């Protein structure tokens, strides 16, 4: 993570999305979205379900294609070329709501696969890196187990370590705690907070407003495929400007 330790440089956009539109058939999922993420910045994306926030971050590593607009990640323009897509994916780690660990591989094997196949690391190198990150998410002693033998929180921490093993420049989190039992949410959030402290660039789709308050540089509120509000967490939680954002916060905070 040495590359991401430098403080955010305001002119340095690691992710740049301009005029991005996406349709699923006739459903307009993203409506001319513009988003710049600087190196080292932590962004929290929130909004009601179906607002396009997951779709948006899935466009950053091309799990979703877009019909219009320009997406540049770490200086690489995402187009239809497989090389560009691969190059971007090498630098972008992703953590999913449903963990998506490989069930037929041990925790350690989950972590070393991509570094060996993609970065051409030797097994010894890949294992050393994997053990470092597994220790960091405090799950090093489970390296020999299979995912199904772990709790949800442990699995999600392995998923974070697996993504980190590729030494990405940015980490995308797609509702990483939504599938977890309440008592396991904290261990995953703590891991993410630690990552943020170390200077990782992060884009997180989450409803964990405490997390947003604590680590986000900016909160982005989306509804119906549009970015309706962008603000510092303080401003967003204290004085949300858009009526949809006020309604959303009212609903979310009523449950906490």
């Amino acid at each position, binding site marked *: 993570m040495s590359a991401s330790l430098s403080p955010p440089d305001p002119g340095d956009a690691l992710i740049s999305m301009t005029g991005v539109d996406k349709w699923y058939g006739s459903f307009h999922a993203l409506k001319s979205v513009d988003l710049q993420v600087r190196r080292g910045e932590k962004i929290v994306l929130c909004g009601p379900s179906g607002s396009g926030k997951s779709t948006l971050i899935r466009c950053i590593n091309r799990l979703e294609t877009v019909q219009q607009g320009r997406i540049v990640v770490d200086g690489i323009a995402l187009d239809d070329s497989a090389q560009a897509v*691969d190059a971007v994916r090498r630098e972008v*780690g*992703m953590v*999913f709501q449903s963990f*998506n660990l490989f*069930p037929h591989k041990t925790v350690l094997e989950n972590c070393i696969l*991509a570094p060996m196949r993609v970065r051409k690391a030797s097994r010894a190198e890949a294992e050393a890196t994997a053990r470092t990150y597994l220790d960091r998410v405090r799950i090093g002693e489970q390296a020999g187990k299979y995912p199904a033998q772990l709790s949800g929180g442990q699995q999600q921490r392995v998923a974070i370590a697996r993504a980190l093993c590729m030494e990405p420049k940015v980490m995308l989190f797609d509702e990483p705690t939504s599938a977890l039992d309440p008592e396991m949410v904290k261990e995953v959030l703590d891991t993410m907070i630690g990552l943020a402290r170390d200077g990782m660039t992060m884009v997180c789709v989450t409803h964990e407003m405490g997390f947003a308050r604590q680590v986000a540089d900016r909160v982005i509120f989306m509804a119906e495929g549009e970015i309706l509000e962008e603000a510092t967490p303080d401003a967003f939680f204290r004085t949300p400007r858009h009526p949809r954002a006020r309604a959303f916060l009212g609903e979310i905070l009523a449950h906490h």
Partner: protein
Amino acid sequence: MGIPELLFLLQGLKWTLALSAIGFLGGGIAGLLVALARTSERTALARGTAAYIALFQGTPLLMQLFVTYYGLALVGLQLDPWQAVAIGFTLNASAFLGDIWRGSIEAVPRGQVEAARALSLGYASRMVDIVLPQAFRISLPATVGYLVQLIKGTSLASIVGFTELARAGAIVSNQIFKPLVVFGIVGAMYFALCFPLSLVGSWLERRLAAPTR
């Protein structure tokens, strides 16, 4: 029923084994290609393969063997019986196995491929490391079931002149007029081939299921 008759049946058993091996091997390799083509993102390839599967699943194996042996000879391509059955069984088995494996590949949760893509793993690695091992486990019961069918289906090779087990049984039965005894033995021999396969199948299933529990 004496020793010579028994030896004759064992000769037939040997042919049945050889024909099964050809079907397994040819059908397995071609079937994997069919499954990969059928699940390809290239629509033309996927559709072409779907048509191939429909054709070979929808026509009798007997007819397919006829065409590869006698039919191709009519247009000047004279294959020897081995080549004809090898091609016939490979085409037929690859359509069935390919479709079984296509279904198994599609049954692997979407998130698995997405996670592999997000890690920048290429197609070959996504398939070899992630999808196929999981698909293989899912496909085991159907695959073993089909292979058992294939062993019994090799009896159709008698139409191009192979004296495999079923045909050998018919010949012996016609000579000694003891169909019950002869076909009892023939049946037991088929069973001896197929049952261990089923056992290996369920053993593999248990073994592969263990780590996910």
